[in-house]
């Protein structure tokens, strides 16, 4: 079923124990676009992102109200298969966390879980996803060596490739470039722009310029609330809310 929005978030509130981290957020994540999510730290960006593939619930004491509809189906419905959800909605974390395995085994971790067994199929996934993450040329001769020996920027692209290898529909990125140098950052951004024709991407970033460069739409969060969402150019030039203007021009945050 092709709904206009890939993900429709409706009145989503997230609580960590008694603390409310997200307040009644309603927005649409457009299909095959990059949605940038900006806001000062503590504004609920990461909480929002992790609510989209139910990672928050791994931490004891969290609970969620409202709905998150993926292709029209509520992912918080008790009957919803959460492992299948996480295969469809992959995430790249702020700090690159390669598993202590070889480069190839990191990539095939997801596909193997999904039941892919044939060597040729797995090898094809390794090459395709590393190429898509612009990492193939740097590592093609040492796929069997430990992923822990890669540089920080390479590790982050490996994490992106690992998500791509699951053949997800949505890719969530949580400040993926926060620890990276400008060249690695440019490579990640290049990869994201190339990927949006096939995937729906949500990019949380502390770097408003990054949102301006790559996002089609941008959402601005402040203290757990969605202040506004719209086409990136409009958000950065004629924001509807003065607080958005203050943030994107660097007057606070």
């Amino acid at each position, binding site marked *: 079923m092709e709904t206009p929005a890939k993900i429709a978030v409706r009145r989503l509130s997230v609580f960590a124990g008694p603390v409310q981290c997200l307040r009644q957020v309603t927005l649409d994540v457009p299909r095959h676009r990059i949605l940038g999510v900006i806001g000062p730290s503590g504004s609920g960006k990461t909480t929002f992102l992790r609510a989209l*593939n139910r990672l928050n619930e791994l931490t004891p004491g969290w609970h969620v109200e409202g709905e998150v509809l993926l292709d029209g189906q509520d992912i918080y419905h008790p009957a919803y298969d959460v492992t299948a959800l996480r295969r469809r909605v992959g995430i790249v974390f702020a*700090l690159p966390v390669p598993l202590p*395995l070889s480069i190839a085994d990191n990539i095939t971790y997801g596909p193997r879980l999904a039941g892919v067994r044939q060597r040729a199929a797995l090898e094809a996934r390794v090459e395709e996803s590393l190429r898509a993450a612009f990492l193939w040329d740097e590592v093609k001769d040492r796929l069997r060596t430990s992923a822990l020996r890669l540089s920080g920027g390479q590790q982050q692209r490996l994490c992106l490739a690992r998500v791509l290898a699951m053949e997800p529909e949505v890719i969530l990125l949580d400040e993926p470039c926060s620890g990276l140098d400008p060249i690695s950052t440019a490579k990640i951004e290049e990869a994201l722009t190339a990927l949006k024709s096939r995937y729906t991407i949500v990019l949380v970033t502390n770097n408003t310029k990054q949102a301006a460069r790559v996002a089609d739409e941008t959402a601005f969060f402040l203290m757990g609330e969605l202040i506004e969402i719209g086409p990136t150019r409009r958000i950065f030039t004629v924001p509807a809310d003065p607080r958005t203007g203050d943030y994107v021009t660097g007057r606070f945050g």
Partner: protein
Amino acid sequence: MRVPPKYTQAAAVAVLGLATLFTLAILVFIIVFVLNKGLPVVSLAFLFSHPEDMGRAGGILPTLIGTLALPLLAIAIALPLGAGTAVYLSEYTEETRLTRAIRFGTDCLAGIPSIIFGLFGFIFFVTLLQMGWCLLSGGLTLALMVLPTIIRTSEEAIRAVPRSYREVSFSLGATRWQTVCRVVLPNALPGIVTGVMLSIGRSIGETAAVIFTAGSSLRLPQSLFDSVRTMSVHFYILAREGISNENAYGTAAVLIIAVLLVNSLSYWLMHRFLAGRA
């Protein structure tokens, strides 16, 4: 008056160095002492022939078998139980009063003298279940004895695996069990192996609990239901009854070498496994 830091630093190095040296010296002394007294008796014939005249003459073959079989059996029983408990406590339950009570309980069990486990094994396995003095009674008793150690070392090792690894695994579509098998246990392995080796050491060295439950027969065991004598028990009986001091030390020398071999082998296996992964 304040002592300048460079003197306290020098003093600290000297004291710590001496402490280390002292510890090492005692260890080396014990090993050299036992090997020196024992090795002259040790030969292939001593290792692989049956004892004669209560151990006054002949070799130690049955006790060698007993020493291999009993700890192996104990670990085979205690490792799945203990590691399973540790996984359950750390991965499948949240921290509650109940899990704290369980943890306190295992700590208490770990501190109970082995003779108590021996008495329990004697009353429960040997007498009540009518299993008699045998390999199985001894193995079960030793398993109970080392179980708390295995649970606690495994749990520590499992908790030391970074949370981010689990999160990555879940985010790639793994279930909790897949995460345990593919990420948690392989990374906790070195700690678990340490616990197993401590347990093997304790089982090999145990005498009281073994005499109570596995007996001290000098015959070669044919099944799990035969009584066995381990090298530690053999050593104890030879020395205690004044049967043969030479053969007692010979047995002790073999025992020490066996423990060193087992530990080296476990480490080697573990490193090979870890090297194969990444």
